């Protein structure tokens, strides 16, 4: 069931969302019955500035093909510099990824507001396409660590 029909690959995306802004935006996409690839999975946190870059690397090790951070942008209820802090986290994770042979383009970040249903769906579609082009994480040296 996990494996797709031959020749088809649906990249697994881990989405980090935020409890009060981007997660409601993602909920709205569902409410409006807007479709995006079902291989996107959301883990919701209070704020994207609290993402531990290690989690991102861990996700790749476990087989996620991409990690998408649905940040709050200027809507963040915690702090005005949330975007910059989150961008730093992304940078750090990208460097770490590169160090172990993972394409840093597998980490993406965008601001998703609480009514950004359509942008979210578009991001998911585009990111999924980009990841299809990059191929499965299993093909990258630092990717899915089968032994773990």
């Amino acid at each position, binding site marked *: 069931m996990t494996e797709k029909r031959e020749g088809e690959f649906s990249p697994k995306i881990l989405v980090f969302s935020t409890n009060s802004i981007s997660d409601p935006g993602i909920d709205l996409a569902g409410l409006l019955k807007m479709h995006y690839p079902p291989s996107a999975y959301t883990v919701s946190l209070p704020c994207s500035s609290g993402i531990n870059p290690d989690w991102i690397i861990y*996700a790749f090790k*476990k087989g996620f093909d991409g990690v998408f951070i649905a940040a709050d942008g200027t809507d963040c209820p915690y702090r005005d510099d949330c975007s910059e802090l989150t961008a730093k986290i992304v940078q750090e994770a990208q460097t770490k990824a590169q160090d172990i042979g993972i394409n840093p383009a597998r980490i993406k970040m965008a601001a998703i507001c609480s009514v950004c249903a359509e942008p979210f769906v578009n991001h998911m579609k585009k990111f999924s396409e980009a990841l299809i082009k990059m191929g499965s994480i299993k093909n990258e040296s630092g990717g899915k660590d089968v032994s773990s």
Partner: protein
Amino acid sequence: MKKRIGVYICHCGGNISDYVDVKKVMHSVENEEGVVLAKTTVFACSDSSQKEMVQDILENKLDGMVVASCSPKLHLHTFRSVAERAGINPYEYIQVNIREQDSWAHSDKPEEATEKAIRLVRSGIRRAAQAKPLTPNEISVTNGVAVIGGGAAGMRAAIELADTGLNVYLIEKEHFLGGRISQWGALFESGERGEELVERLYKEIIKRNNIKIWTGAEVESFSGCVGNFDLGIKIHPRFIKTDKGCEKFEEIIKQCPVEVPDEFNFGLTKRKAIYKNYKKAFPEQPAIDIDNCTKCGICEQTCPEVFDFNQKVEKLNLKIGAVILTTGFSPYEPKEGEYGYKNSDTVLSLQQFRRLMELSNGKLVFNNKEIKNIGFIYCVGSRQKGGDNKYCSRFCCTAAIHTSLLLKEKYKDIKTYHLFRDIRTYGKQELLYRDSCKNGDIYLKFDENQPPEVITEGENTIVRIKDLLTEGEEIEINPDLIVLVTGMVPRNNERLEKIFKVPIGRDRFFNEIHPKLRPVETVIDGVFIAGTSQGPKNLTESILSSLSSSAKTYSLLSGGTLQLEPIVAIVNKNACEWCGKCDEVCIYDAIEKKEAEGKTIAYVNEALCKGCGSCIPVCEQRAIELKGYTNKEIMGMIDGIMEEVNG
């Protein structure tokens, strides 16, 4: 000790089970480590399901619970309280969203939706296995509420809140209270006039000594958290002492040589640099528009004791427990040329026209022309298929028809044409429509794709419409005045949205959490919204939400204490090497340097920590985690999603 977890997969009466094979999900997770029981339920949130859960927890000595159902925004609290009733810590309950983020989003791919549900539920089980009991922080709250916006909704809320014993700060940007309703004239239903209504509210307000009014005041900053906010406001000087009166204000205003367009009358008239919005505006003292004042000093000659040109901008910090935003609406401003707006002397917005009616004595005259025929064009700035405002503005059909009735009452021979798309006089307002039809008002219906054309030729204006009520016949009317029935847009809430972090909806108005479950609450605890700041409403509807938000505010603050979410940062003492980076990044001063067991470490002040987690990634030792979102929990969730799904 291993957790004993109960798992419930909700059908949501078909919302989930129509697309997700809930039985299969149940079977796929029932043998997961720690799962003692797994069940499906038609409505997890129903009373009988809740009772069953309590019983299951007690009988099976569960200490963890997972419900896979709708978004946690809807029923996290419902199930947390189930857990609590059964004696488990509410934070050992995990809600998994398989509706908004699964069955609905992937209704086109039921098989994949089922697989996603299995993975998500498993991830919830892993999280539950790692979840630790947490205790909310109890804090005492400030007895104070700020109401931002001194229109009808804000004034009404202030009165209600004051009666509950709360200290109320009513903050109005203009120098006068009353907002839009004071511009409106006679009101639908009771016939009371907007100005009279404002007077009625104002007199109630000044009776209560626990309401403090600031006019000419703007919000500058907002910080803190529910129960204890700091609100920074800036008060612009009025240059007239509000504690002193003068009998001759009217005369003084007349003497002022400066004339500028009067915004209160939407530019139809001019006002002086010393002004009142209208004669009986409150507070009673006029204000000086210092930007336009030439400081000629004429006004000061009469009653010099009331003037004070040395008044400075004052900044205040208010301590409050909650805030209600009643910032209201602005009339939609048609684009230049939209139905001839601004290009022609015969086109006004409905709001302008209402002011014109207020200012008229005897005859209805505009631009020296007596008005005998009026064409109302509906849905201007509303229901725009391709435009910004896709929504219906709700109040305007009734407002235009009511206006037409008032006209007929006052000016017998006036003729009105109503060019509409759908007449939306819902409820008892329908009676006005009926009366208007009886009056002989003429209704012509146009299609959204073929809006009426306004053609101006000098002083002559022609409106051409394809009337759907007469089989699409092209009709020309030649009115003396065209009134654009303009809808509502939010009143400059962009700045406030940034300050208060209140989400806005697709319509750009402030957005509530849920229209039925939490209609006046926002995702920011302690920040409420009411009136037209959250969407178009008529006055009665504004007052309903204003009173609702007062009731909710009182419930929040009346206990004197509040339980705060225990989601705070926690420092691993062994790993911490105090480098100070966490302290640097924290904007809430929640991190302190502390000596413990012979070394310097970071210490989290839980009362100040907001739980954003910004300190986590900056810590090189990875010595900080967030309660409820620990490494074990997050990594457990990732594991749960990624393990292979069998069968």
